[in-house]
């Protein structure tokens, strides 16, 4: 873009008087290698980091790769790491930084890089497929489902998930140990198991799927050491650890480590 085009762009923005120059370091590269590149770029009042990345694209680096979509924190596409912290670029306001601060933007580090800020998140889609789906109760037809609000509330919290995969990125189990990826579903998909296990009408138990047991045996719940980074980075403020992972650990403990519960279930089943 030429200088006058940049100027025109600035003039379009109300409050352009509050504009300043910010220092950015953006990781550029691909699987063959890369490095942090320095940029000086204009910032206007009320902007977020994604706006600045777009300005870089439009003015200085037209082939800078970045994945984004809704720009309103609803789709979870623009996940990256800003000053070393996993965040959505569209929900990180520039006003949280000092004007003199150098802002470093890198791709998510737990996933293979495609190019620049874009990573290959297929790990997550593969894990999603390994979780057995909702099992509809065979005796109920469409329109016959009756559920109380208090019974759906817990799972609804987890369904707020926008699948930005920041929790998967920050979780040290796979972030720091690539070899654990095969055995560990990650917070997002352990939460999915919790969501289904708490669904008031999921008929998995009747169809022979024990979500509580498989969470530990097949999806790596035991790898989680509840250090809560997933909760810390969740842009939807879902209490992943307290409301999904720990309850799931307790449910697994019901199944595997609690003879009282085991005995109780045996007796109850016999008397039924």
């Amino acid at each position, binding site marked *: *873009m030429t200088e006058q*085009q940049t100027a025109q*762009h600035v003039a379009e923005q109300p*409050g352009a008087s509050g504009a300043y120059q910010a220092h950015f370091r953006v990781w550029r590269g691909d699987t063959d290698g890369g490095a942090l590149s320095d940029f000086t770029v204009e910032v*206007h*009042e*009320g*902007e*977020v980091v994604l*706006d600045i990345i777009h300005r870089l*694209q*439009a003015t200085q680096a*037209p*082939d*800078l*790769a*970045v994945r984004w*979509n*809704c*720009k*309103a*924190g*609803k*789709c979870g*596409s623009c996940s990256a790491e800003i000053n070393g912290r996993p965040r959505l670029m569209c*929900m990180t*306001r520039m*006003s949280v930084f000092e004007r003199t601060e150098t802002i470093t933007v890198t791709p998510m580090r737990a996933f293979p890089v*495609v*190019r*620049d800020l*874009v990573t*290959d*998140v297929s790990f997550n*889609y593969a894990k*999603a*497929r390994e979780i*057995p*789906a*909702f099992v*509809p109760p065979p005796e*109920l*037809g*469409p329109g016959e*489902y*009756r*559920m*109380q*609000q208090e019974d*759906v509330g817990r*799972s*609804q919290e987890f*369904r*707020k998930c*926008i*699948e930005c995969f920041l929790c998967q990125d920050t979780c040290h189990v796979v972030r720091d140990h690539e070899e654990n990826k095969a055995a560990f579903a990650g917070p997002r998909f352990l939460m999915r198991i919790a969501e*289904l296990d708490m*669904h008031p009408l*999921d008929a998995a138990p009747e169809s022979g799927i024990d979500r509580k047991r498989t969470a530990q045996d097949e999806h790596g719940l035991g790898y989680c050491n509840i250090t809560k980074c997933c909760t810390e980075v969740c842009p939807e*403020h879902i209490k992943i650890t307290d409301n999904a992972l720990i309850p799931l650990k307790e449910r697994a403990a019901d199944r595997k480590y609690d003879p009282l519960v085991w005995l109780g279930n045996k007796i109850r089943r016999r008397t039924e």
Partner: protein
Amino acid sequence: MAHVDRQTWDVVVVGAGGAGLRAAIEAREAGMRTAVICKSLFGKAHTVMAEGGIAASMGNANEHDNWQVHFRDTMRGGKFLNHWRMAELHAREAPDRVWELETWGALFDRTPDGRISQRNFGGHEYPRLAHVGDRTGLELIRTLQQKIVSLQQEDEKEFGAYDARLKVFQECTVTRVLTESKSGSATGSGKVSGTFCYERESGRFFVLEAPAVVLATGGIGKSFKVTSNSWEYTGDGHALALLAGAPLINMEFVQFHPTGMVWPPSVKGILVTESVRGDGGVLRNSDGKRFMFGYIPDVFKEKYAETEDEGDRWYEDPDHNRRPPELLPRDEVARAINAEVKAGRGSPHGGVFLDVSTRMPAEVIKRRLPSMHHQFKELADVDITAEPMEVGPTCHYVMGGVDVDPDTAAATGVPGLFAAGEVAGGMHGSNRLGGNSLSDLLVFGRRAGLYAAEYVTGLTARPAADPLQIDAAEAEALRPFSAEGEEREGAADRGPAENPYTLHQELQQAMNDLVGIIRKESEMFEALKRLADLRVRARRAGVEGHRQYNPGWHLAIDLRNMLLVSECVARAALEREESRGGHTRDDHPAMDRSWRNINLVCELADPQGDARAADPSLGQIRLARRETPPIRRDLLELFEKDELAKYLTDEELTR
């Protein structure tokens, strides 16, 4: 070109939003090997932005509701320009489509007796919107996504591969729908034979050969500067249909949602859900006045409250009070806000005030409007429980789209091409009611998938993909890499390479200023001139770098679609000399009954080549008028005679 990778499928669905995924599920369940192709990651489609709910007359909140009432509301909202058969099918089938979602794991908010809770929305007579807080679109997408995964799990058990019968090609773009050549020409409009696509990640081209293609690409909002739409909404499906030989209808009708954020600039246009008003939020101008009471049009006079007291009582007792005018159809509210701002009674950043803080306790706001609370807190640093929001109109939805058969969703003129959702035209008439979009996606997404499968089953031979077309499509897609400094034959192509970002900004500015919410003849002439100029310059849009994840290149390709669609909007808007729904003419402010049953049909003027695209004196789009079939008698009888007289001509009434 021989080296382009080819795969064979039965049905290809373009777009993985609500309509696309629903179509894919239906086609796969009908036994088709189905491919879904989408520009974003799977599960990120623009449908996630829908907040309010899914309109379906289940009658859970008010037992008087039924499909006839829903049909009536839809027709009224669309100012009777809707294709009545689509509105009928939509109203009849929406409840089943919602209930079906529950069997796939959706968790809607509940009524005290355990059924799906339904909320009020603009233009709907009864509480009708099934919802999950204000993130219904996310729930819809996630449910459909998880249903697809569950089908893939079945296939994995049966065939050992998740992708055996249903595959999602994510982050891929379709640039052409391929058709069987009729006369050996490169762009013949015979039967569909497949799609030409590229992977955004690698830039690799590939062809999906399939006898049926379902377009479910959504809308065109990215041609406008202030829009609630995401980057994907570049009118791809509209343009693909046109280029394949299928016409578009009703393209002049573009919905401006009355309440988009106006500040800060970077989020200008992002939606503020209508549920804010449905749940009790009110609009005020800078004088603190609830100005909507002054903007109730005659056709709606009997249906809306005249005093603030009556409007406020309605939230508690809807059977004995009329609803407040904040809940008028979107076009009315958008125009009213526009007028208030123009009259100098706007908010500091050029909108009006939308207030819930004085209407509900903070906890109620946080519970019922969680993502709005979150959105304003995080993006604008505004606490909506303590202060009003500033809002203004934003381009939100295009009512126009591919001309389809109302029952089968088959596109006119191109056998094997189907369209569903926002990309299809007709269902919403001149203006869409809130909540009718998500139900539209499900009802017609399913129909498109079903009839695409039926079409494929009925074929005796599969049309072959034409190698000439594939070569042409590849050359077209590669053009931006060779634009710089190149001297081509033909004067129009000469000149320096253009930055696609600049072109896009100019296009958005032109459409916003000249074909926006209020339209004038002179401005639209100007718009057509600018579009022609942009079209010529867009042929020189050049990009640097390589094909791997190159956003500049992607935009250069999308520009073709946006320019085509924008021309449709501008030409049709210029032609329709009345104001109706999402089309407001400053120079023809009244609704004209004689225009009601006229559809404006857009077709490619030069389907055989691109000579006209290169010539600024010509346009690419040819307009035709077409009458809609008369409304079936039993449907007409659902309305009072007096009301019909406002919309239908005397001749139509006596027929």
